[in-house]
C-alpha cells in the first residue's frame, strides 16, 4: 500500500493522523479571489520529480499523476516488488480517476491565445485524458498486464479495486496495481462549487468537514493518491510478500434516479451484494468506513442504508472524510488504506467534528474519539454522481 494524502504523505504519517484525529483541511485564498463560494480544501504539497523521473516521463504527467507515482512507489516497496520484477512479470494497473482539468484549461488557453495547435506542445494530450494516471504509470513502471482507468465519479477508486479483485479471482491476472488519484486545484472543483455542495464554514477549516453532525453544511473537496497492490494469495505467498488484508467482497449498484441526489436503496443493495459475495453475515463486520461526505442529504441517506443492513447493534462507523475532506476519485482507494491501517493497528479512527447527531445519524454507532478495537473485517462504502455505488469488504489476513 502507498498513500499521498492531506493527512500524511506516507503510511506512517497517515496512521498517526488517523489515530490523532488530525484534519488536513485548509482555507485557500486563491479560490475566493477566483469567485468560489467556498475557499476550503484539503491540500498536499506537489512532489518534486525533476531528477527523479526523466523529462519525457514528466511532461505528460499531471499533478494527480505525480501524487499517484509517489503513492505507487511506496506501495511497490511495501509489497517488495522491484523494477526488475516488473520488467519480467505481467503486472497490470487499474486506477480510478475522473478528471484532469488543469491541462485541459491550459492547453485551450494556449490555443485561444496563439491560434496555433503546434504551440500546445507534447505533454498536454497525455495529461488531459481521464486515463492519464494509468497510461503514465504503466509507462513509468513498464507494466505489461491489464491497463485502463476506472471512471466512476466519487466511487472510482473503490470500483478500481473491485474490478481488480474480480480479475484476480477469475485467474486473469496475478498482480494488479489498483488505486485512485484526485487532482487538487480550483479549476477541477469550480463547477462543483457552483452546486452549493461545499461547506462554507471558512472561519474554522478543520471543523468544516463534519459528516453525520447535525450542523454539517456541505463537503470539503480534497485529493492526493492511494495505491494498493492486489495479488493472488498464491503469488503473494510464493514471493513472501506482506499481506495487509484479503478482499472478500465487492458489491455495486446504481440508484437509477437522480444525477446528484443520493438515495437509501442503491447503497443498501451494494452493501448487501458485498456481504453475499463475502459469504458472511452482517454481524461479522466490525467496522464500516462510511462514504459520508458531510452533505445533509448524503449522510442521512447513508445512515439509513447502514442501519437497514446492520441494525442498531451494528458495527462501529466513522467517516475519515471528517479529517481528509472528500478525496473524490481517490477516496474509495484511500479509505481502504485508512481502514487497513486501523485494522493493522487495532483502532478505529474518530469521526471528528461529530458534536450532535441528527435523527437519522443517531441510528449508528459512530466513533467520536479514537477507539482501541480489534478489527477482523471491515466494509468501505463509496458512492458517486449518477448514483454509482461500491462497497468493499476486507478481512484481516491471519497466516
Amino acid at each position, binding site marked *: 500500500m502507498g498513500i499521498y494524502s492531506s493527512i500524511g504523505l506516507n503510511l506512517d504519517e497517515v496512521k498517526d493522523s488517523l489515530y490523532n484525529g488530525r484534519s488536513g483541511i485548509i482555507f485557500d485564498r486563491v479560490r475566493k479571489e477566483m469567485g468560489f463560494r467556498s475557499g476550503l480544501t484539503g491540500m498536499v504539497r506537489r512532489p518534486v520529480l525533476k531528477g527523479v523521473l526523466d523529462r*519525457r516521463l514528466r*511532461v505528460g504527467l499531471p499533478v494527480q499523476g505525480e501524487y499517484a507515482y509517489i503513492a505507487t512507489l511506496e506501495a511497490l516497496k511495501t509489497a517488495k516488488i522491484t523494477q526488475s520484477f516488473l520488467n519480467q512479470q505481467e503486472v497490470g494497473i487499474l486506477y480510478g480517476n475522473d478528471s484532469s482539468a488543469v491541462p485541459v484549461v491550459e492547453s485551450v488557453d494556449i490555443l485561444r491565445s496563439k491560434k496555433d495547435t503546434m504551440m500546445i506542445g*507534447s505533454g498536454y494530450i497525455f495529461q488531459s485524458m481521464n486515463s492519464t494516471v494509468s497510461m503514465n504509470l504503466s509507462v513509468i513502471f513498464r507494466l505489461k498486464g491489464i491497463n485502463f482507468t476506472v471512471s466512476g465519479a466519487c466511487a472510482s477508486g473503490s470500483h478500481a479495486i473491485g474490478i481488480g479483485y474480480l480479475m484476480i479471482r477469475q485467474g486473469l491476472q496475478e498482480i494488479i496495481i489498483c488505486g485512485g488519484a484526485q487532482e487538487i486545484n480550483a479549476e477541477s472543483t469550480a463547477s462543483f462549487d457552483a452546486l452549493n455542495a461545499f461547506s462554507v464554514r471558512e472561519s474554522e477549516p478543520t471543523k468544516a468537514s463534519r459528516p453525520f453532525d447535525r450542523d454539517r453544511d456541505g463537503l470539503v473537496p480534497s485529493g492526493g493518491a492511494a495505491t494498493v497492490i492486489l495479488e493472488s494469495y498464491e503469488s503473494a505467498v510464493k514471493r513472501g510478500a506482506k499481506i495487509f488484508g484479503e478482499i472478500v467482497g465487492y458489491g455495486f449498484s446504481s440508484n437509477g434516479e437522480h444525477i446528484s441526489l443520493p438515495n437509501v436503496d442503491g447503497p443498501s443493495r451494494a452493501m448487501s451484494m458485498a456481504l453475499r459475495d463475502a459469504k458472511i453475515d452482517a454481524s461479522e463486520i466490525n467496522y464500516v468506513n462510511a462514504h459520508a461526505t458531510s452533505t445533509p442529504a448524503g449522510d442521512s441517506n447513508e445512515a439509513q442504508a447502514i442501519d437497514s443492513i446492520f441494525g442498531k447493534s451494528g458495527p462501529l462507523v466513522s467517516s475519515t472524510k471528517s479529517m481528509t475532506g472528500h478525496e473524490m476519485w481517490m477516496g474509495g482507494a484511500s479509505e481502504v488504506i485508512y481502514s487497513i491501517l486501523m485494522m493493522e493497528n487495532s483502532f478505529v479512527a474518530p469521526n471528528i467534528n461529530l458534536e450532535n447527531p441528527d435523527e437519522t445519524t443517531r441510528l449508528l454507532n459512530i466513533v467520536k474519539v479514537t477507539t482501541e478495537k480489534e478489527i477482523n473485517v471491515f466494509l468501505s462504502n463509496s458512492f458517486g454522481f449518477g448514483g454509482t455505488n461500491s462497497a468493499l469488504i476486507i478481512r484481516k489476513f491471519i497466516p
Partner: protein
Amino acid sequence: MQQEDIIQKINQLLIDEIEIDETQIIPTANLKKDLGIDSLDFVDLFVIIENNFGFKMKAEEMADVKTLADFYDYIVKRIHPN
C-alpha cells in the same frame, strides 16, 4: 543576434528545456540517436524555438536536419536568411 550567441542560446535551451546532458552537446551529435530527441521532443522544440526566437519551425524544412550542427545552421539561416 550573432551566430555564436544563437548557438549558445540553442545549447542552453537544449540543456534547460529538453534536459540534454551538457557533455552530449557537440556539433556532430545526431539529434535522434545521440541526443535521444524523439518525435514528441520535436513538438516541444517547435514551441521552444517560437517562444525564444520568434519564428515557427516548419516540419518540411527539418527533413535534412540530422545533427546538432545542422540544427544550428537551420536556426541561423531562419534568423539571418541572407
